């Protein structure tokens, strides 16, 4: 009862804030005689509140310029994002990582005074989609009030902060409707995510913004869909984990994983087969990642995970969280623990229960044979006589657009999706591909070739692009033999002609350099 009346009252405040046109509409006031005084009164209170207290929100303007994965020696045209960052203690600003991906220039702007300062990215985690910014001008954030982290629960009222063009703080109500583990945008990482409903108005400058409960930070806005009025919010516990890990002086160690995949154990036939005679919980391990935490701990495919630490795992992989209710056990593993934590896993193997100590770890994305994401980094490439060699990565595949998993070359999509299975024991570090051809006198007859996987050059298998120089040195007959998977099997270029044509390529195609192996 209390919650509902509070919500409706708050709703009126919200409507007033948007509909309110300063002072002039005398007739409007008369028409809504009973409502108007209350509205004006509350609005003034908010305005007064704004004036009294220093802000905890700062405008962030970012210029981004990602690399063109198809022309890896050049960048796409720059574009700008505008957002609202949360000012944290220690003179730092919290925003989402997507805001600063491939950023070339960042600015903070005081909404009140319009003072600006450049800023730099101090820490960024693309998996949890969070970034910490530091102003280049010392003392720039002194006038701001740092915001603390809140402890929200499902059903809480949230305030979505936005900044008007004149710098006024605009606060819109929302309701925290669900909290559960979901996929985050950049790497499909699974972490706790809040969902809220709100009649948020799309405003320029809201790429991300703080979501507040009772004056403390409940989360950062990840996405908002005005049609469904649904907001996805990176929750306070995830932010807290990020900040704690970011405070470590050494390298940033991200959200850890157990290095396994599991399937639900609802099917009674599967349960009996797995030797489970009592109880109705537990999940069936279907995959153990190479060099992952589970593999190191000796867990096996077919083991049943019954509990992680003190948390009993049900047959769908959920546990009962005191604050969030039934959510995935992944929250315990990834957000309630840190890289290096040792956690006891209670398992059943062929019906026998035992406890296994698992040292959770964050897998290095750079160790994947097909990198899941590559941001703020120039793509590697090697141009040989016009043949453009690159390394297959998901960033490369995403260049085919939002439907890349339908439009990119089928063999590449297949390799990316099933890389754990296909390249389990593969000695390669990366998969070298012939991306396309820049026509030159060396490449007559090869102009249409594209999307080929390169196995060897001059008989030497390529572990990654950096091997190309050594492979070229192996040329025995004055030619370079490039062996690819499938048709056309092998293409050949003249070794001397390739060297001679280099200045021509650089001049004709405006290449800054013939290769980048950084």
């Amino acid at each position, binding site marked *: 009862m209390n919650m509902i009346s509070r919500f409706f009252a708050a709703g009126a405040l919200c409507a007033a804030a948007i509909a309110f046109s300063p002072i002039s509409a005398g007739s409007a006031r008369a028409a809504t005689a009973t409502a108007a005084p209350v509205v004006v009164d509350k609005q003034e209170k908010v305005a007064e509140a704004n004036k009294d207290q220093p802000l905890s929100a700062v405008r962030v303007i970012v210029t981004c310029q990602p690399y063109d994965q198809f022309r890896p020696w050049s960048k796409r045209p720059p574009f700008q994002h505008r957002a609202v960052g949360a000012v944290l203690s220690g003179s730092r600003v919290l925003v989402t990582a997507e805001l600063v991906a491939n950023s070339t220039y960042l600015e903070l702007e005081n909404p009140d005074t319009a003072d600006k300062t450049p800023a730099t990215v101090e820490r960024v985690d693309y998996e949890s989609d969070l970034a910490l910014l530091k102003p280049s001008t010392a003392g720039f954030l002194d006038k701001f009030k740092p915001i603390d982290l809140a402890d929200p629960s499902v059903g809480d009222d949230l305030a979505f902060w936005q900044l008007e063009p004149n710098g006024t703080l605009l606060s819109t109500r929302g309701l925290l409707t669900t909290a559960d583990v979901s996929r985050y945008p950049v790497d499909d990482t699974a972490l706790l995510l809040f969902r809220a409903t709100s009649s948020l108005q799309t405003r320029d400058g809201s790429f991300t913004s703080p979501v507040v409960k009772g004056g403390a930070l409940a989360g950062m806005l990840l996405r908002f869909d005005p049609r469904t009025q649904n907001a996805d919010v990176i929750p306070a516990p995830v932010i807290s984990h990020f900040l704690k890990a970011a405070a470590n002086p050494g390298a940033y160690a991200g959200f850890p994983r157990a290095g396994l995949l599991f399937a639900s154990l*609802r099917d009674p*036939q599967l349960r009996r087969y797995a030797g489970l005679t009592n109880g109705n919980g537990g999940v069936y391990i279907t995959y153990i990642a190479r060099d992952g935490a589970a593999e190191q701990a000796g867990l096996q495919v077919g083991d049943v995970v019954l509990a992680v630490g003190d948390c009993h795992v049900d047959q769908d992989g959920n546990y009962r969280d005191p604050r969030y209710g039934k959510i995935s056990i992944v929250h315990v593993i990834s957000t309630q623990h840190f890289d290096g934590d040792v956690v006891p896993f209670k398992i059943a193997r062929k019906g026998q229960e035992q406890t296994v100590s698992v040292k959770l770890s964050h897998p290095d994305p750079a160790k994947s044979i097909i990198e899941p994401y590559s941001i703020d980094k120039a793509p590697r490439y090697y141009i040989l006589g016009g043949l453009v060699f690159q390394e297959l990565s998901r960033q490369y595949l995403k260049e085919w657009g939002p439907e890349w998993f339908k439009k990119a070359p*089928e*063999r590449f999509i297949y390799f990316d999706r099933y890389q754990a299975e296909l390249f389990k024991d593969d000695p390669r570090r990366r998969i070298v591909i012939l991306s396309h051809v820049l026509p030159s006198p060396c490449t*007559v007859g090869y102009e249409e070739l594209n999307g080929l996987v390169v196995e060897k050059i001059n008989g030497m298998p390529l572990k990654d692009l950096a091997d190309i120089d050594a492979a070229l040195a192996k040329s025995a007959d004055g030619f370079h033999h490039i062996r690819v998977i499938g048709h056309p099997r*092998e293409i050949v270029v003249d070794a001397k002609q390739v060297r001679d044509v280099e200045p021509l390529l650089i001049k004709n195609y405006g290449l800054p350099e013939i290769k980048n192996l950084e």
Partner: protein
Amino acid sequence: MRRITWLFFFLFAFHLRAFAISIAEIRKSLVRITTTSQEPNFRTPWTPGSISGGVGAGFVISGKRILTNAHVVSNARFLSVERENDPKHYIARVLQIAHDCDLAVLSISEPKFFDGTVPLPFSGKLPQIESSVSVYGYPIGGERLSVTTGVVSRVDFQLYSHSAADSHLTIQTNAAINPGNSGGPVLQEGKVVGVAFQGYSGDVAQNTGYMIPVPVIHRFLKDIEDGHYDHYMDLSITTFPLLNQAQRASLGLEEDSRGIYVSQVASAGSCAGALQPGDVILSIDGHPVESDGFVQLDGERVEMPEVVERKFKGDTVDFDILRDKMRRSVTVKFDRPWPYQLQCSQYDIRPRYVLFGGLLFQPLNRNFLETYQIDDLRVHYLYDFFISEEIYKEHPEVVVLSSVLPDPINTYLNDFRNGVVENVNGAKIQSLEDLATAFQKPADYYVIKMLGEGRPIVLERAAVEAAHDRIQTRYKVRADQNLRDAVETTTAEN
């Protein structure tokens, strides 16, 4: 791979032309074929399939036979044939049918049918570009015989859309070819130069119709002389034009413009053991192969595979090749057609399947994919790369769990649809027969492991036995499995 959508023509149009003597004789030998067909049902493969039909054309050839397209009489359950000025309907049967080149010959039960007919003569050479042709048939637009005219626009290799996997010589014409023209003759100066069979719809391309030329027709008629159709022979290799000078020099080729590079040799194909990847083909049966893959054949410049188009089972083909810079001669014998038909549209078949615990397992093939419109990456990869990645070595048949007939035994198994079976109780599954055999072996549990990561499907024997009759009754399943794909009907003679 180009994917062109073709239309099939099974309806009518009308047009008359004065060409006195020829027409009178020609008209006596033209027939209108009405087919009642039954399409195999891949979704519920224990049911007989829906009944439909269509109309096409055909004409009398030597031996008291009628020549028409395979697609006119595919899946036929009843064939009725009519002639002009004859009120009777005659019952016909398929004598021989070739789905890989869209041709078929029919016989008529009533011997008097052929009285007064003259087998239409075939032309001895390909018609010239821009020369006139006339198309006879029973297309949409009317009920009586129709003639349309045009010129020969192009002579080219094209995909024959009936099987959707075979390409042969075609003659393109701008004479109107519409639904119902299929199987009808195309004539020039009183001789047949082709059988009208496919074309583009007006919104894709105009005045673009195709006929099967005489060389393809003759090959078919010669092939069936022994009473058995042995199919086209295939080299089953992929080649790459040798246009790059560095590549040519590294292979030891002289500066002239001959030679193509062999990039792949299918291990299940005719050239396995004879040709190797890396070989350069210099000539085929004595015809020099130019570096763009064309040869001179009978005064025409055609693609190299045209030479193999004219081969029969038991024939050989000679290659002059360069291997490791040394010239050699290699002979390839064609003793079997390409064994894997999964990428061809198939006809006159019954779908093969195994039903176990309400789980329906079917082999992956074109008909199956078209029925289920599966969106799964792994299934598509296995289909698209079946030949180029030699997936048939591990999976001569790719067995897919296509659907689940809901029952308590399988109520947790819906997520397994579109999975590919890897093994059952440890026995590797490489064909539908393997699966049927594995399910027949008694075991307490049937543990079905699918390709890729995921839990196994576990079915308890007692539950399977209890569910069997329940599922059969509920879903009116007549048979648990069908492992034979042949169809027995009374419209075909063996």
